[in-house]
């Protein structure tokens, strides 16, 4: 009886070790298999890790300004000069139905004064965006797309973007305009024409 007991004292340990080794091999195999499977899904270069706005879907709802994880949004207004009509009465520069065309604050569309304009020649004005002042609210974009050529549009400034694993703006974008893009398509500009 005591002999059997001694045997038993030894044997459960061996069984446990055997089970452990088996499950280790199983876990290793599973890790290897899933790793191999995932490797077939992996992309060569950086993959689609950049976030960008499709400006043709964007409705300039204003959430880009408020929902970015950065305190000043990474979304900025871009200006496509080759699309712009260089108008004097610019829908993105002045608020609708302004009485006088001057730079008084109540006339300006941009709340931070980020749109600068310069006289080119009669009757054309050149508009530029001061990105440091732009908050990405999209007010000018709305004005320009509904009154003008749509040369003002929102884009994610890739130098500011933190490239979150999930874009906080994309989660709330009502028109699903923000999508993952690759390095080569990191901007969706309008003035390639």
């Amino acid at each position, binding site marked *: 009886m005591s002999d059997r007991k001694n045997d038993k004292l030894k044997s459960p340990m061996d069984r446990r070790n055997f089970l452990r080794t088996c499950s280790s091999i199983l876990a290793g195999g599973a890790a290897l298999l899933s790793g191999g499977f995932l490797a077939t899904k992996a992309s060569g270069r950086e993959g689609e890790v950049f976030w960008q706005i499709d*400006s043709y879907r964007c409705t300039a709802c204003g959430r880009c300004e408020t929902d970015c994880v950065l305190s000043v949004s990474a979304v900025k207004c871009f200006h496509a000069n080759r699309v712009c009509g260089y108008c004097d009465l610019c829908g993105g520069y002045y608020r609708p139905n302004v009485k006088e065309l001057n730079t008084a604050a109540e006339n300006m569309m941009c709340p931070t004064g980020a749109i600068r304009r310069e006289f080119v020649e009669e009757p054309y004005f050149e508009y530029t965006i001061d990105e440091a002042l732009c908050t990405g609210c999209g007010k000018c974009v709305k004005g320009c797309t509904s009154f003008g050529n749509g040369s003002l549009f929102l884009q994610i400034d890739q*130098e500011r973007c933190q490239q979150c694993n999930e874009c906080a703006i994309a989660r709330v974008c009502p028109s699903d305009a923000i999508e993952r893009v690759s390095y080569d398509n990191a901007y969706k500009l309008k003035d390639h024409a």
Partner: protein
Amino acid sequence: MRKTLIILTGFVCSAKAFAVARFPKPDFTSGYEYPDIVHSVPSELFWNILDVVLLICMMGLVVWAAYRKRSRSVILSMSLVSVAYFGFFRSGCVCSVGSIQNVVMAAVDPGYSLPWYVLLLFLIPIVFALLFGRVFCSGVCPLGALQELINVRNFRLSRAVSATLSVIPWIYMAFTILYAATRSQFLICRLDPFIGIFRLGGDIGIMCFGIILLIMSLFVGRPFCQFLCPYGALLSVFSALSWKKLEITGKGCINCALCGVSCPVDAIRAPQLSRTKEDRSRGVKRIILFVILLPLLTFSGAVLLGSQSDALSLAHKDVYLYEQLLSQEANPQQEEPLEVETFHALGGDMEALKEKVDSIRDEYERYAYMAGALIGFVIGFKLLKLSLKRSRKTYEIDMARCTMCGKCFNYCPQNLKTSKLHTDEKTVS
């Protein structure tokens, strides 16, 4: 020009919100040239390579410090490097913890291409866990390192409480997989408590949650790693089966119980020798009971969560929009939410949306069953594991729980003796 614009404003309401060449390109006579504005894209390639290389090097160093040197100071300095580099400098994104979601998405969605370094971030810690245990948690994960660095006291939770709480990471994991597989949201990224601290700003609710966790981690060892982190739970499975086992001392345990007191995550199991052995048949019966309970719990978990799939699917944007549209239709005088407004403005097709929503709901049903089964299985398995009694002669490290902080090395008198001897020799010579 001015006149045309003012006329235009009159019927602009009917105009579509897309870029239309309403005004012709101006013909400049003054020789004006279009400015060339270049928007640069920072290439992350260098940083991604550096991330992966640093990850491997730091984990190698931790392995060396834990297995060879038994030194906490190396592990602590790794924690500092990790918090500074992976945390504050790289602002914590993409991390291995969050990479679970990318991996799930890549497995489910053929259209998504998984970046190679995200795959590596996911796999390398698992490989290390299979070989040496949770090396990643130790001093390489910035989330764990941050808690480790500020931990001062360890108030011990009772085993029952910590066993119950340790189910939470798996529930978190199940929901993460559910939401990532249905492409609804990245739950881990959204609820990451420390990202706001690393970025010095962010969602106020999540920041508060992070700060509460940090205050807790002053008194309890790594509350996030122990009771929340889904990646830690995954690693603990591999770590429990690891090739090498960490030993507190190389000189043989003298059962002084000091290491058990030092462990912040309660990973050191005391010897069980003096206890009276229970009747074998009783033990076997209990194990049989829990083995039967395991599939039962799995099944009921699956049914329970599966039956809630419709409610869960509201987390998906399109399903939520659809519900909003329906409630708007039922009650037209209420104010239109922005989503509904945009849907109509873009000329959304209700039929197409309904089709999409139906397929999403089907997906949800399938994955909700799976997620529920996972939760049920984990609860059953934890019960089974709790019911097993192991005999131990010395203090041993539970590799599944151990986060390799290295505190016990300094507490063990066997380790101290050697280092004291060394210093004595040095002072003599």
